[in-house]
Structure formats: structure tokens, C-alpha cells
């Protein structure tokens, strides 16, 4: 798979986790692609943390409105039934447990469901934006990411980078498979048939409980 196919593969798998009526926040980058794969028989409402519900697709030349952007600063649209609000309300929705699913990327995830995704000290310090509130407040947190960083492990025994939150992740979805975070540890519950369990173990520093 090339990078595009790989990201779409992960995004399409994440979309299967969504249920009819879910309020969902999609992070910048790969998670944004999940919107393209939401099954037609369910309706989900996308939240944008800059302040609206009912996030719609990228506008065409005809319906472009520069006052409507997503949290990544890209032009988007608002669907019928959507509404705008200020940042305090937006994060009330996020922190208050009113988001059913938060999908976001990560630099590292570990056996305890700890997540690091906002800085590499001395190198990359973009800031946490809304990520800390999202992973703390959402009912279900799905990490959607490539299994390794060009071969370097990202699913670890213990995160080494500054944490975004502790015990926050519920599910990790990569191009290799699906891993559930449980009290006993990380459970590999599904694999991409292109890979073997041994491939996945080799690409994962953390211990995996195999429950296929």
C-alpha cells in the first residue's frame, strides 16, 4: 500500500466503529479522512472544536464561505441542523462527555492507554490545541495511526514523550490491525490479512494478548 492507500485503509476501518447518532470529533490529518468512509446507513454528527456541530464536506466554488473553517484551518461547510457556538461551549461539549468518539493520531501509545501526541521536546512543539481535552472528555478514544514511524515502534510498553493524557485510549487502529486497550493489557483483536501475527508483534514494542 502507498501512503494514500494506507491512510484510507485505516480511516475506512475506523469508520466501522461509528454508530448511528454518534457525535464524533475527527482530528487533523488521517482522522479527517474517516468522514469519507462513514457507512450510508448511519448518521453521525461531526463536531469541530473551533465551534460548531454539523461539519460538512469541503465546499465547492458555489457554496464556499470563508467564515467556516475546520480546526485545521481548512474551508469546510455546515450541514442543515448544524449550529455555531463559542470556544467555552465547544469545550463544554468536549470535556463534558458529550462527544461519543474522538479519533486522533498519536506519536506514541502504551500498554496503559497513555497517549503522547503533542510534542517532541526540542524538536517539534506545536502545542496540544484541543487534544488534551478531547482525549480526557470523549466517551471513546480511537487512535488512528500508522503502526510504526518508518519502522520505529510507536506502540510501546511505556510512552517516552510528554503525555497528552493517561489511561485515555480505548482502541488503536493501524494498517496492521486493531488493538484494544484493556485492564489486562493490549489485546490484538483483528489483523489485516496482509500481515501475520508475528509481523505485528515485531512492529510492536508492547506485549500483545492475541484474541483474534
Amino acid at each position, binding site marked *: 500500500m502507498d501512503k494514500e492507500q494506507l491512510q484510507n485503509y485505516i480511516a475506512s476501518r475506523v469508520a466501522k466503529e461509528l454508530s448511528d447518532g454518534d457525535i464524533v470529533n475527527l482530528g487533523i490529518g488521517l482522522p479527517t479522512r474517516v468522514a469519507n468512509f462513514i457507512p450510508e446507513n448511519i448518521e453521525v454528527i461531526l463536531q469541530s472544536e473551533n465551534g460548531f456541530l454539523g461539519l460538512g464536506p469541503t465546499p465547492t466554488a458555489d457554496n464556499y464561505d470563508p467564515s467556516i473553517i475546520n480546526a485545521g484551518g481548512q474551508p469546510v461547510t455546515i450541514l442543515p441542523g448544524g449550529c455555531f457556538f463559542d470556544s467555552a461551549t465547544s469545550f463544554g461539549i468536549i470535556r463534558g462527555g458529550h462527544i461519543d468518539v474522538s479519533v486522533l493520531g498519536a506519536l506514541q501509545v502504551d500498554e496503559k492507554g497513555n497517549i503522547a501526541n503533542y510534542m517532541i521536546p526540542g524538536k517539534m*512543539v506545536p502545542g496540544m490545541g484541543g487534544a488534551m481535552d478531547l482525549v480526557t472528555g470523549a466517551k471513546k478514544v480511537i487512535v488512528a495511526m500508522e503502526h510504526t514511524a518508518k519502522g520505529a515502534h510507536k506502540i510501546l510498553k511505556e510512552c517516552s514523550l510528554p503525555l497528552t*493524557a493517561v489511561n485515555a485510549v480505548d482502541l488503536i487502529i493501524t494498517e496492521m490491525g486493531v488493538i484494544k486497550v484493556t485492564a489486562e493489557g493490549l489485546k490484538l483483536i483483528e489483523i489485516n490479512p496482509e500481515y501475520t501475527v508475528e509481523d505485528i508483534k515485531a512492529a510492536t514494542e508492547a506485549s500483545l494478548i492475541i484474541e483474534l
Partner: protein
Amino acid sequence: MDKVVSIEQALSSIKDETTMMVGGFMASGSPETLIDYLCQTEVKNLTLICNDTGLIDQGVGKMVMLKKFRKIIASHIGLNKETGRQMNAGETQVELIPQGTLAERIRCAGYGLGGVLTPTGIGTLVEEGKKKIEVDGKQFLLETPLFADVALLYAAKVDRAGNIVYKGAMNNFNNVMASAAKLTIVEAGQIVDIGELNPQEIATPGIFVDYIVKGRGC
């Protein structure tokens, strides 16, 4: 009461060392006319409180490029590489705050609260130096109010009493900041007479606004 003034009068209180809040999210809903004016003044060593540092040519990013800030308090600086460069070079002090916590700390300042308890940041670098309080068995961080000398806002439509109507997603931090500064200045895309706005659609009460400056439309 007519709060419409010239840009010179509105911004005359911004001096070196002023702490200013600026509305907007990735420069959407930012007061570009007020920012452009400040770019042309000599003021320096300002403290900025803003969700992010915009882009190099949009929003407060334009002031970052001119090194107007001694300190920046924001949730995200990733889309303006110059902020990161100044931070790494030790030229500008940058304090990163989770976005929801930033909104609540500003809201506390405007709403007479001594602080807010949030679970966000527990177990991370954010909790350093902060009081942890347990409520019903759950841990929270005490986050304190964040005040400013001046708040600079943007709105699509404002009446002469300062009542604000936003457009699209441009509200973001504007409404939250309106109450949290000693002096609140709104750049209005359109200024209308008192009585022309439907009271139901006003998102920010005019009593929070001190000055209105005619700015660019959206």
C-alpha cells in the same frame, strides 16, 4: 451611547508591556484591521493571549513576525513556524495551555470566578505547579483566571451599543474574551444603528464592549 471611535483612539491605550487577548482561531474571526494598525506602531514587549499564533501573514501571526510579543500564551503554535523559532531561540516566552482550559481560564476572569476544576492535564506536564483537588473521588486541576488589559475582537455585525452578531465559525474565542479584559475593543465588519439587530441573535451583550472600530467585512 455610541461606542464607535477611530482606530487611533481605540488602540491608544496599548503601550509597551500591555497584556492583550485577541479573538480568532487560525486567524478566522481575528481583528485584522486592528492587528495591521498595531503592526505599524512602535509598541513592543506585549503579552499575547490567543488560541494560536495565526499564520505568518494572517491574524496575530503578523505581529509575531515583527516580534511584538515578549510572552505568548496559546494552545497551539504549529501553523506559524516563526513562533516556534522564537521560542526555541529563547527570544519569546511561550506558554502552552490546553484549548478548553484556555477558554475556561479566560471565562473565569470575565465571570467573577476564582478558578475552575478540570480533569484535563492530569498526569501530564500541564499539572506542574498546580493544585490538585479531589471531588467525589476524581482528580482535578485548579486552573486560575486569566485577565488582560485589552481584548481585541472581531465580529461581522455590531450595533452602536456594542451588541455583537458573529458569522460562521468566527465566534470561537471572541465571546469568551469580551468580558475578561479591562478594555474591550471590537472590530466590526458592519456597524448598524441601535434597534436594527434582533435581540435573539445577539451572541455577546454590548455592555462588555467599550469601543467599536469599523473594519473589514467578511
